[in-house]
């Protein structure tokens, strides 16, 4: 499917939002301007010609040295037309994206996960907290500059420090 119908529609509807279309292994990815993301998403879900009613997946990517640093990818599925479309947009470090959790409720948890793992904020999100990691966790582990073994790997446990001092802490 080289000519993805939704792609053409998007180009016609949002000529300045679409920044590029990539085809790889039969998958279509549309890069969208960050500012118009919300409008594009609403159009894709509500337009009779596209009807992307299922947000299958939402993923963050840290591109490391590139600017803007982060990329997020939304994978959509349309029940009516049975096809998939990936929408991606770039986010700079410290910048926020608009939430799409009011378009698809499934985005609620997925955005929380991206926030947790990458530190990308989502404006308008009803409850933006960490989801997998504890609330007092420092850093965002899926960033490329986060060490694989963690930030506190070299640090001894508080228990050990106390024991070194000769204090019994289990008493």
């Amino acid at each position, binding site marked *: 499917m080289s000519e993805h119908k939704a792609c053409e529609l998007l180009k016609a509807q949002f000529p300045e939002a679409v920044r590029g279309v990539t085809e790889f*292994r039969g998958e279509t*990815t549309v890069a969208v301007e960050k500012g118009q993301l919300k409008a594009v998403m609403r159009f894709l879900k509500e337009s009779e010609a596209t009807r992307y009613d299922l947000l299958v997946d939402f993923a963050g990517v*840290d591109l490391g040295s590139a600017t803007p640093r982060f990329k997020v990818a939304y994978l959509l599925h349309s*029940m009516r037309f049975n096809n998939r479309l990936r929408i991606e947009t770039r986010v700079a470090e410290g910048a926020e994206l608009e939430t799409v959790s009011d378009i698809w*409720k499934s985005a609620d948890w997925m955005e929380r996960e991206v926030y947790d793992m990458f530190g990308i904020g989502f404006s308008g999100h009803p409850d933006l907290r960490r989801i*997998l990691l504890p609330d007092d966790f420092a850093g965002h582990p*899926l960033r490329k500059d*986060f060490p694989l073994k963690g930030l506190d790997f070299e640090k001894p446990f508080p228990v050990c420090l106390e024991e070194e001092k000769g204090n019994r802490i289990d008493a």
Partner: protein
Amino acid sequence: MPEKRLMTVNMGPQHPATHGVLRLLLELDGEVIVKAEPHIGYLHRGIEKLAESFTYNQALTLTDRLDYTSGLSNNLAYCLAVEKLLGIEVPKRAQYLRVLFAELQRIAAHLLWVATHALDLGAMTVLFYAFRDRETILETLELVTGARLTPSFIRVGGLAADIPDTFLPRVREFVADFPKRVDEYETLLTENIIWKKRTQGISALSGEECLDYGVTGPVLRASGVYYDVRKAYPYSSYEDFDFEIPLGRKGDVYDRYLVRLQEMRQSNRIVGQAAEKLPPGPVAAVDAPQIVPPAKEEVGRDVAALIRHFKIMEEGYRTPPGEVYASVESSKGELGFYLISDGTNKPFRMRIRPPSFVNLGALPRMIKGHMVADVVAAIGSIDIVLGEIDR
């Protein structure tokens, strides 16, 4: 009128009915749930981060540890993604065997589900029946993969090895016997008045709500939405098999139960067809020597094969830069892998689309307004596995 007071109750993470380490904060008005808030992450191992430091071969072993009730389905989803990235075709025999394994694994996962779900709701007998049959499947799979829990048997490019001669007769025996076994579970539960009272009308979701929450798998189909990755985006030759997608109507706990039982029957049909139609031939891509390691005998005979073996095991292989998404219908829903390659031998990013994680997101909506005792029924009916949710 007295002041209305809410009570907060903590359920889990150490609670037998939360199927692992799920913690729920329930806000109660008497015994009615006003608000529920799942807390997850107790089992977080950073699999997506770990995968970035592993070669494509090594990262396969991580997938076993996602949904640990259906390791082979996870292997399959991952391998499909890497194969799509590489652009290689797997031989028909391997594709059929993959289908056979995945469906046996689905039956095993559903049996575990029906056993524990019934146990949660007080019907203990089902567990003994279901585990008897699950044991048969696990032993049959162990015959091939050598493992019960973490097979890592489906490899990029095909399978780790061909099946032994004793495998297919055992599969045929199981396939012939299994429909009677499902009938047995049905006599225990389907018309059981207590079972019906505990499950009918509980935590119902409409089809639109399911889609809104991104729910996939049996939970979505119980609400009457026809979406199954095996039919929507057929992979691994699923289009060659004749099977139906069971649908429910009401989307409650009872319909989810019915859908899963029907799915077991359909999976059994697929296993039977795969065993009958299994074509001869190699079980790994022969035209991709840089990806598929040489056979053991060859390594002992030929020094070039030995070098190739070492190269694949040590260095792995490079993938073309690009990004792909491949998904399978696992026993829980759509399990997808979104791989981004930068042209090296390790994934630049491996995002796992876990069905249980997304499905659990709908739990607060499902149990709102129901009784505390129904929470157990609702959690059981989504069939969550925390290994996959927390990753």
